[in-house]
């Protein structure tokens, strides 16, 4: 029973997260799927920001932006690398 006061910070934090997620998802449903620049241009009343740099670029023809698969792969490699460094150097 004494665990509740000790965990009050975590409970407040999780409650805040739930609230933020609900508001964020609802807003996303209202505005639809857009990239950062496009969403910003749309919100500010400018014409579509598609030309503003969301497309193109990348390394050797591969664009990290907007690709969940590549993003996950890079994140996974980084996580494995960090774990290996963590074990090797006994941090």
């Amino acid at each position, binding site marked *: 029973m004494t665990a509740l006061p000790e965990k*009050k*910070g*975590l409970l*407040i*934090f999780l409650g*805040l*997260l739930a609230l*933020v*997620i609900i*508001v*964020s*998802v*609802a*807003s*996303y449903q*209202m*505005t639809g*799927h*857009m*990239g*950062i*620049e*496009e*969403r*910003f*241009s*749309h*919100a*500010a*009343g*400018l014409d579509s*920001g598609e030309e*503003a*740099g*969301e497309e193109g670029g990348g390394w050797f023809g591969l664009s*990290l*932006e*907007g*690709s*969940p698969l590549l*993003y996950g792969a890079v994140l996974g490699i980084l996580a494995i690398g960090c774990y290996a460094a963590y074990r090797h150097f006994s*941090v």
Partner: protein
Amino acid sequence: MAHIHLEDGSFSLFWVIVWWTVAIILIGISLYLLRSGKKTDSRKITIAAFCTATAFAIFQVSIPVFGGVHLNLTPLIGILAGPLIGSLVVLIINILSAAIGHGGWGMIGANTLVNIAEMAVAYATWRFLKPFIPDLFPRAGIATIAGLLCGNIAMILIIVISGVQGVSQSTTQILTGLSLLAAVNMGVAVIEAFVTGLVVTYIGKVRPDLLWGERS
């Protein structure tokens, strides 16, 4: 996270100068306080350097959530480096970001103000909550959400006050659009809160002396 993604020319020259001036005044005050106080701990300078490099890199990575958002790590900068050194850190990050086309050059002043708001509010929340929430993870997470919320409010205020050149929408329409944008942006605050909480918790375990004000 809150960052004015508008190109140069979106604000009139007057407002570009105004936001640059306010940012320079705040950074000048930070420099004055840093120089007039006791000698800055070299560990804090090192932390600030790491924060600058990390935050600049993470600024450029678009996370495929809600169509694409990016982390800022400004609350983490505030918690680790403090608001004085942190204001210099966010200025450098915004200059380097503008150099590679992430935000216009004229927007550096406004974006620096937005990031200073995020960082300062996160730092203040972090310090204020210490007696009530001693646990590092939830306290850092709550501070992050508070900071990013204030950063988004600052971003909206700056755009609404400045006005955007070449648009026919009314202020109310722009305010509505930006409020929805900010609400979507806050989705990434969840990720950023977890990242900040984990980093702060880890540092608190291995090097608690690097968390100023946490030494027992």
